[in-house]
């Protein structure tokens, strides 16, 4: 599927989202719950701002020394007997995994939830060479079953579907005859999938964090499918975005604590699986062969720029869970598998910049994302930086906006011109002003979009400037 979802451009997608009442109801209720769960979890922890600061310091240091830590990681994996492939592009990553699958003559793979494998279109690539890939995370399984519907959230990918919709999908595609009770449907999926784990030749996972000092990986999850995926198949392939790494186990503690509380309001998720592969099946289960694929795919372009902190992201989605824009348009409207504020910052870097130039404007800059981020990424400021880049570096701003901004800034630099403009406002808008309620219902030019949905008060007859000046004059005259 790749990063891009859907073929439509931004505004039609927004319109679709806004019209989807079912999705919006689901998103509102999920946001409200996730927000309060997160607040409770962080309150319980106490000193949340210190935790955030520590998280920021760890992520900053790691990304600043990324080459060192990736070197250490790869050395340790080789020492443990694993293989490491550094992939500059999505294509390179896909081709390497294809090669491994072909060497193993594998026809069945099970996969646990991973955004980076979505990003590089791994499933398609494996299907092409005759390897069936089964998504085993409940939400991903639902999406896959529904003719590869697209994820709308990075932690809860099928957030946009309600239980009835899911029941219908199961009924239609899998002959499910039960009710829409979540427990019953989950039980059904358990039965459907259990034997598939035993049959699979290959397990594929993402990773939440790699630990450089020992060549280990952490997967943070709740369902247990990630444990089955890393335990039963004899070959394990882990795909990671190149920045998803911490120096040592001590830092792992911090980022995992931040992630669990921020993402789902849990102290720790049910399963945190920490593997150092291949274990040579020393426990009698677990993979005999291990491959790690480290993916760049555009990430390194952010290094050394004012966007570097984007790579600090730990993918908790707490920015998405508080975003008022996401709340109303849903994940699909972003046209990227990475939606919400982090998606709007990240996607233009990982995909075609021009194609996603609307995303940085899909924010009222309310700062809820920045406030929520557990590693203090200044998300709303990065959105402004994107806008600056679009306007000043890429020259992609629409012409009327450029003209309006030019007129505005020229005027605002000259007090005389500015006051002249202000004074002129009531006169200019007089023909459009409703005489009864002193408001403008249908404004001209730049005011038009405003009055599409709102009234605008008519400008005051006398500006503050003018009033103040008159006061001063009257006082001086009175004194005489």
């Amino acid at each position, binding site marked *: 599927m790749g990063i891009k979802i859907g073929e439509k451009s931004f505004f039609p997608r927004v319109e679709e989202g806004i019209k989807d009442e079912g999705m919006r109801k689901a998103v509102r209720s999920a946001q409200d719950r996730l927000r309060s769960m997160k607040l409770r979890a962080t309150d319980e922890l106490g000193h949340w701002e210190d935790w955030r600061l520590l998280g920021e310091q760890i992520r900053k240091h790691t990304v600043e020394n990324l080459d060192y830590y990736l070197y250490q990681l790869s050395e340790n994996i080789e020492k443990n007997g694993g293989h490491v492939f550094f992939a500059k592009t999505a294509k390179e990553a896909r081709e390497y995994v294809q090669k491994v699958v072909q060497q193993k003559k594998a026809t069945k793979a099970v996969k646990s939830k991973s955004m980076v494998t979505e990003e590089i279109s791994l499933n398609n690539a494996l299907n092409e060479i005759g390897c069936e890939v089964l998504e085993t995370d409940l939400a991903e399984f639902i999406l896959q079953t529904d003719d590869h519907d697209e994820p709308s959230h990075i932690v809860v990918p099928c957030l946009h579907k309600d239980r009835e919709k899911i029941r219908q999908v199961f009924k239609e595609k899998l002959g499910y005859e039960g009710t829409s009770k979540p427990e019953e449907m989950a039980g059904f999926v358990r039965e459907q999938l259990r034997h598939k784990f035993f049959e699979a030749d290959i397990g594929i996972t993402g990773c939440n964090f790699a630990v450089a000092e020992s060549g280990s990986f952490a997967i943070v999850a709740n369902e247990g499918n990630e444990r089955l995926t890393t335990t039963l198949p004899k070959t394990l392939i882990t795909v990671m975005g190149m920045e998803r790494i911490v120096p040592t186990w001590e830092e792992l503690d911090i980022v995992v*604590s931040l992630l669990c509380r921020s993402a789902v309001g849990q102290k720790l998720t049910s399963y945190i699986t920490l593997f150092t592969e291949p274990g040579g099946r020393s426990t009698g289960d677990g993979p005999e062969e291990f491959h790690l694929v480290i993916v760049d795919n555009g990430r390194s372009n952010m290094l050394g720029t004012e966007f570097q902190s984007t790579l600090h992201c730990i993918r908790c989605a707490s920015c998405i869970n508080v975003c008022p824009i996401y709340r109303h348009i849903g994940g699909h409207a972003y046209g990227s598998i990475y939606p919400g504020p982090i998606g709007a910052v990240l996607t233009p870097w990982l995909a075609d910049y021009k194609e996603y130039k609307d995303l940085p404007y899909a924010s009222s800059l309310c700062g809820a994302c920045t406030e929520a981020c557990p590693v203090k990424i200044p998300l709303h400021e990065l959105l402004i930086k994107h806008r600056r880049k679009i306007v000043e570096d890429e020259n992609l701003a629409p012409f009327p906006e450029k003209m309006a901004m030019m007129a505005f800034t020229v005027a605002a630099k000259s007090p005389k011109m500015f006051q002249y403009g202000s004074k002129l406002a009531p006169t200019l808008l007089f023909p459009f002003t409703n005489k009864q309620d002193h408001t403008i219902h249908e404004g001209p030019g730049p005011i038009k979009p405003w009055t599409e949905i709102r009234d605008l008060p008519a400008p005051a007859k006398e500006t503050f400037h003018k009033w103040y000046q008159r006061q001063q004059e009257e006082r001086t005259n009175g004194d005489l």
Partner: protein
Amino acid sequence: MAIYNREEFLSRIAEKLGREQKIESVNRPTWTTAPHLELYRDFSKDDLVNMFETQCDVIHTHFKQTSVAELPHLLRECFDELNAQKVVIAGDPRIEEYGLNRFFTKLTESDFYVHTWEADKGDENIEFAANADVGITFSDITLAESGTVVLLNDSGGKGRSVSLLPRTYIAIIPKSSFVPRMTQAMQQIHIRVNEGKLLPSCINLISGPSNSADIEMNLIVGVHGPVRATYIVVSDK
């Protein structure tokens, strides 16, 4: 065992960062704050067990406390309650230490099937575990804050599947294994790495039964992993 494209990949990173490539001698800085080290600092073992018990409610896990002497009796009660007949237990020297050999031998004399995981039993282990009603492991480190048992599945008998495939998971938790939170467990592992020791191929942090909130954010207990979890704290160990 091979590493592909590393040189090119890492030099690009260094170039973008505007400096020479670093492949050695990067030291972690001293972080300016350490809130995790302050948490639950003066908690006694009893305080930790209490916090753990409270958290068990949150994570839908059955909490029990007993002594070594009473442990077999309590396990038997659990099996009966679950209607369990097939039990898989991780091969762990503590089985003997806790006097459970005799208990399990006796069980097999009745209607029970008890399988102790041993790496050299091969696929037989997995086959048994996949059909078992109950899987039992000992906890190696126990995190009070989050209600978590830490399993260091390093070699031999400590199969990953024991705590994963059966419908019910039971953890036997020595009271001495309690630490406040993940911090202390990660520190222990970090020390092992520093000492150059091999790490367990899989370390599992387990906090309750498997669950999901993927359908309308409704908590569903029991998805791919065990649908039920019971923790038994052994007070005199």
